[in-house]
């Protein structure tokens, strides 16, 4: 069985997901996540040799759209929904560092 998830792990993941958790929430979610992961361990314990991996339950592949342009959204209408806009663009607070 894998090592039990710690509050440090959950703090890190919460931080990556930009979630601010209170100490109580941290305890609660660490417990809940541990149970979910233990359930995964139950499955990992089964002998699944010869069982095809399944990416998703739907027996569907190759669902496509034709490469044809549709109607764009109206820019002014969209920018009116943004907190701040400037020169036809969304204005956001300064960003530290480049995108990954």
């Amino acid at each position, binding site marked *: 069985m894998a090592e039990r998830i710690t509050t440090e792990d959950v703090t890190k993941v919460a931080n990556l997901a930009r979630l601010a958790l209170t100490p109580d929430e941290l305890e609660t979610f660490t417990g809940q996540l541990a149970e979910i992961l233990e359930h995964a361990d139950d499955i990992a314990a089964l002998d699944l040799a010869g069982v095809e991996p399944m990416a998703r339950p739907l027996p569907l592949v190759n669902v496509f759209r034709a*490469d044809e342009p549709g109607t764009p959204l109206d820019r002014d209408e969209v920018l009116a929904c943004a907190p701040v806009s400037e020169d036809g663009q969304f204005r956001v607070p*300064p960003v530290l560092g*480049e995108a990954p």
Partner: protein
Amino acid sequence: MSIDLDAWEIVVGLEVHTELLTRTKLFSSAINEFGGEPNTHIDPLTLGLPGSLPVLNEQAVELAIRVGLALNCEVQRSVFARKNYFYPDLPKDYQISQFDLPICAEGSLELPNGKVVGIERAHLEEDTGKSTHVGGGGRIHDAQHSLVDYNRAGVPLLEIVGKPDLRSAEDARAYVAELRSILVAVGASDGKLEEGSMRVDCNVSVRRRGDAELGTRCEIKNVNSLRSLGRAIEYEAARQVDLIESGERVRQQTRHWNEDDGRTHTLRTKEEADDYRYFTEPDLVEIDPGPEWIERVRAVLPMLPAARRHRLSTETGVPLERVALVVERGLDELCLAAIAEGADPERTVTHAEHNLSDAKAADLDPAKFAALVQLETGGELTATQAKTVLAEMVETGGAPADIAAAKGFEAMESGELEGIVDGLIAAHPEEWQRYCEGDGKITGFFVGGVMKATGGKADGKAVTALLQARKG
């Protein structure tokens, strides 16, 4: 800075992102077009609006298959994954990419010099929007705020990951140039590095010669031309060698190439893949191209640059390295057609290599090109005259014999040439003495003199032969 290449080996692996030439985005019907007024190529999915769902563009898959086959890859069943991170140019807060099951795996690319570079994988993903940093002179760390344009967000990208098989900046440049030719040939990309439709991230490490293990690598971003690619690799390799030789170690990080100061700068220490919390994209199903689709694409692939180089080299006997430029200029068909009309293969390729840099050269009539080569090999035109006539043929489309006649190019009587050479020898006894003593540098003096006296009509080779004969 330069590295002692006897002691150190440079190891380079390149990740090339190319935008695919579709009409619309990867997962929505907003148009895929460079530029345009900011935020006019947008729709609910592009902006990550609640309730919008992605539907895969079939043409993007078709183009990815073409590239995969052109790179000798295994085109396989593939799955999309979410790569989670927060950045304003990514309004959904995740990028749809492929992770453990990419559409193309395990391929290879042959450089014009014959070296073969492994391709690890090529996967489909969506491009991000474009942010402009305002204030602080455009420098990201001093910016007051940023402006975001989502026209590019969601444009289909194919990320082609090469293996760390490259061993020099020169090979890295050749790899990118070759990849660009292939992408353009199969119609997957316009190959414009400057407009960012092709972007190169460059993994560089160094190791002592003979070491089996690879050194710690740094990834370099912001390389937007073949020239900066070469400079960035050389700078980065030298930086790493300096670190190691002074007893420090290279830390794995992402670095930013600055074209102005010619250096790389720390951008950030490398994230772990775990931090992106990849998981299977629940809103999309698998792609399974299947043998029929793959064979249909394979059947219509054009002949690729490597095959064209081998064909031209085999059919002309001119070595591979020399035909590379001819194929790059798209003049191989012209050469083969001219040769079929009876032109000498070697002279034909030589003209294409040295005298046909003009873009209009591809429109030359092969029969006229062949006639020009024949005039030259038949001794009726000198090499210099043939070059002049060829340039005018490209310009006007005229026939070589007419152009030669209009320019007064006629084969010189050999007696006339002998007279001029003898006159020159008589007028310059000291120079002749040096020539007879074996001073090779003085040959040009005599050849130049004859050219001047004949208005360029003399055949340089005939003059050299005459001089040799006179020397006895």
